[in-house]
């Protein structure tokens, strides 16, 4: 075949008309198209999950029941968690992986493009099924996203079985995606790009994919045991039949803890790409960043019971899990110090991606501190199941994972679409977001320490002031996100004016191709000094 034929640039296989449009997006095996599908799905679900959060915050504006009954409230709490974890953060990072991994390693596409299509298209079906449970008789799931038995087995509404089915589908999508990512990274790197010359984002996704393969099946096991206890007379989590409700917690959190690292490791990868670009300086300590990420992933398997300190663990177990949990602070600290060292004596500019990345370093670190406090078992007896925990995980998930997603979107959007986003609107979005995030979640530390439990629709009078503040912050946050929506939609209508390089300090293979990249990305393996690019 002639070179000309291999290199022929063509766009997506789509002609005029609605049928052709649907066919392109339904049957695409292109990593960029599939990445776009994941990102739009997660953006839509961000507003859905966000609306649920606003229902929660609305009810919590004042003591007393004003807007919803307690069962509906519990359903909102549960669905908000499930949607944000499984419908927003995970699909969004998979969308990033799809877009960026082949481009960053110089591959034409993912290793398994048809599997890729299925990995995505399961999601809208699974999410619709999950959402539909809210409208079934008895209502939707109302036992928290952690689904502790027996509240989620014997005492749960009938729709729970549909929720279990939906989660199985979500898990299947993640497993297939993880397999694809590993196969792609291990097999399709450009010649000369050894593992220790891959971009950090690719490294974090390689490790995340292994975490997914290891723990999603465990989660599937837990929810299947739930299904059996509910419908087939088993007693896995029922003491009267010889089982143990705490067994559920062990199995769930064996999945659940690595899961939160699945949510954050790709975020670390994004930040490790953005900061060097805007500091115009290579990432400090690449090798140690890789080792630290691997250490975090390893440690994430042996800390799960820190979610269970009040369940009556034996002393030796409490001590072991306390020590291991505290230990995670070491590699995480190494990463933070390395990012700061990347910035130090660089020549920084503060475009929107960099603003989100800097805010990430500040605020994720604060979330890390509250995490360290939570690791101390005796102190945890006062923190567990209070708003102190809610503050902790929102700091690491909102100003951690979500900010990294926003940073990455602003960073790569020009490359993906060939258009510039509006920088002024980006800055407005950033400042409103970061200020409102802190207004919403910082008071929650105080609320928890002062004695407010989690997952309650109503509270004692001394918690009123901070709840009011948090609600105001939440509404500002919610409406501020519309700025980003507008920015993206409006920018997509502009003409394509972006060059290959996009950002002055950007290094990496994705910045060597056009904006947007060619339909098949790299049809010939690129030749470059990959050492210079990390």
């Amino acid at each position, binding site marked *: 075949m002639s070179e000309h034929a291999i290199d022929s640039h063509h766009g997506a296989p789509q002609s005029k008309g609605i049928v052709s449009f649907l066919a392109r997006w339904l049957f695409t095996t292109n990593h960029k198209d599939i990445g776009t599908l994941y990102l739009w799905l997660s953006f839509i679900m961000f507003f859905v999950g966000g609306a649920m959060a606003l229902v929660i915050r609305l009810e919590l504006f004042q003591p007393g029941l004003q807007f919803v009954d307690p069962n509906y409230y*519990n359903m909102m709490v549960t669905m908000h968690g499930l949607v944000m974890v499984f419908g927003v953060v995970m699909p969004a990072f998979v969308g990033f992986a799809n877009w960026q991994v082949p481009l960053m390693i110089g591959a034409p596409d993912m290793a398994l493009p048809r599997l890729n299509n299925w990995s995505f298209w399961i999601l809208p079906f699974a999410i619709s099924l999950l959402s539909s449970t809210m409208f079934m008789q008895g209502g939707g799931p109302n036992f928290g996203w952690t689904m502790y038995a027996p509240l989620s087995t014997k005492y749960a509404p009938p729709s729970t079985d549909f929720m279990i089915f939906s989660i199985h589908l979500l898990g299947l999508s993640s497993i297939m995606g993880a397999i694809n990512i590993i196969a792609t990274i291990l097999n399709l790197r450009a010649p000369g790009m050894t593992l220790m010359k891959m971009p950090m984002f690719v490294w974090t996704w390689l490790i995340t994919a292994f975490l997914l393969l290891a723990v999603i099946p465990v989660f599937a096991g837990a929810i299947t045991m739930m299904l059996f206890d509910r419908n087939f007379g088993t007693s896995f989590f029922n003491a009267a039949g010889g089982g143990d*409700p705490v067994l559920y917690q062990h199995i769930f959190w064996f999945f659940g803890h690595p899961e939160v690292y699945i949510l954050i490791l790709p975020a670390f990868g994004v930040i490790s790409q953005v900061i060097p670009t805007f500091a115009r*300086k290579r990432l400090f300590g690449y090798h*140690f960043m890789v080792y630290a990420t691997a250490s975090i992933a390893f440690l994430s398997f042996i800390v799960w019971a820190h979610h269970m300190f009040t369940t009556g663990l034996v002393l030796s177990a409490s001590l072991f899990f306390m020590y291991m949990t505290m230990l995670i602070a070491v590699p995480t600290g190494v990463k933070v110090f390395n990012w700061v060292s990347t910035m130090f*004596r660089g020549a920084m500019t503060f475009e929107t991606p960099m603003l989100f990345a800097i805010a990430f370093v500040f605020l994720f670190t604060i979330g890390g501190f509250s995490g360290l406090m939570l690791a101390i078992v005796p102190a945890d007896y006062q923190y567990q199941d209070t708003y102190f925990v809610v503050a902790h995980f929102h700091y690491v998930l909102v100003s951690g994972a979500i900010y990294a997603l926003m940073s990455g979107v602003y960073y790569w959007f020009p490359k993906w679409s060939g258009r510039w986003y509006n920088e002024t609107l980006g800055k407005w979005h950033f400042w409103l977001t970061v200020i409102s995030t802190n207004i919403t979640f910082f008071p929650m530390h*105080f609320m928890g320490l*002062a004695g407010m439990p989690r*997952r309650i629709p109503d509270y004692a009078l001394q918690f009123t002031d901070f709840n009011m503040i948090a609600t105001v912050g939440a509404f500002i946050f919610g409406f501020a996100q519309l700025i980003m929506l507008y920015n993206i939609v409006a920018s997509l209508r502009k003409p394509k004016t972006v060059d290959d390089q996009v950002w002055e300090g950007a290094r990496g293979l994705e910045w060597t191709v056009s904006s947007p990249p060619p339909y098949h990305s790299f049809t010939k393996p690129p030749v470059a000094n990959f050492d210079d690019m990390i």
Partner: protein
Amino acid sequence: MQALIKRWIISGLLLITQVANATPESRFNMPRGVTPISNAIYDLHMAIFWICVAIGVIVFSVMIYSLINHRKSLGVKPATFHESVKVEILWAIVPFFILVVMAIPATRVLIHMEDTKQADVTIKVTGYQWKWQYEYLDEGISFYSSLATPIEEIHNKAKKNEHYLLDVDHEMVVPVGKKVRLLVTANDVIHSWWVPQLGIKRDAIPGFIHESWMRISKAGVYRGQCAELCGINHGYMPIVVRAVSEKDYEAWVKKERDDITAAEALATKTFSAKELMEKGKSVYENVCAVCHQINGLGILPVYPAIKGSSVSVGKPHSRHIDIILHGRNAMPAFGAQLNDFEIAAVVTYERNAFDNNTGDVIQPSEVKARRNVKPNVNQKTAKKKPINHHHHHHAS
């Protein structure tokens, strides 16, 4: 004269210690509390907090300095350093040692907390949906403790009182200075018994019992809440512990025993319809209305209506009594929590309020008789025609 001066000095000292120890209900921080464990936890918490603040100040100062001075707009040229094995090892080892310093006192406190031996009083705490039961195993007394906040306050029809959502109808009383051992379990789903000022949080797990202990140093009232999502009224099952002198504790135990005897005697008494309706309304609004609602319309399809239902207006009314005694489907059994008078009253109320108007009056003796009989909760009976016409229902 000397005795008087001595008394003044002692009172003065007591006053100062009271003031010094008084931690006002802080809106920002954990209470230091009134047990050795809560004190140890508070001290650990503050130590870790200050260490985190120190580390944060250092890291953020470096960042802020960099953000101000290392800008392209100032014309700086970026440096090229990008690795240093020495520095990486240093900032891994130093935090590791800081962690060890934190872990040692934490370990000590945890080991101390595990020692439940040689308790003076043992109380079995059982979490129910949505109340607590306290059984004093050595004293032979037991009672339920439910939220006492009036439902009007929750629905914003009355002003919320000072202890909104933190009031119960029957406090857990313990002696000051004695070691009180708690055996925590649950009857249905997982709950969690938490009183911040005592420094105790123990999950209540159905089918299992977990221990904790406390030695309260100061008399007073200490309030807490359930700390594990347990269903619709998770936010409405508070805990109130009253610590009193040993003498007052003994007197309280005796009174509890007497009350139990008195309640048993009520089973033989005959009450007027007015007495039963009045008591029944109070029981209904405090115990039943959380699910069946004040207006008796329930929340369909999960919580049935009382108004016009076949149970409330149909025959035999023994079915109505049995359902309350033994529970049915999602409704828990109330036979242990409510005495015969209370059940007779609430059944009378339910059968006559909400326009049900059956005219039925149930006496406690009838309820007592049903306790030992095989219950009939499921057999449907024909609806009895009410005396007055129904008004149209409001939408529920």
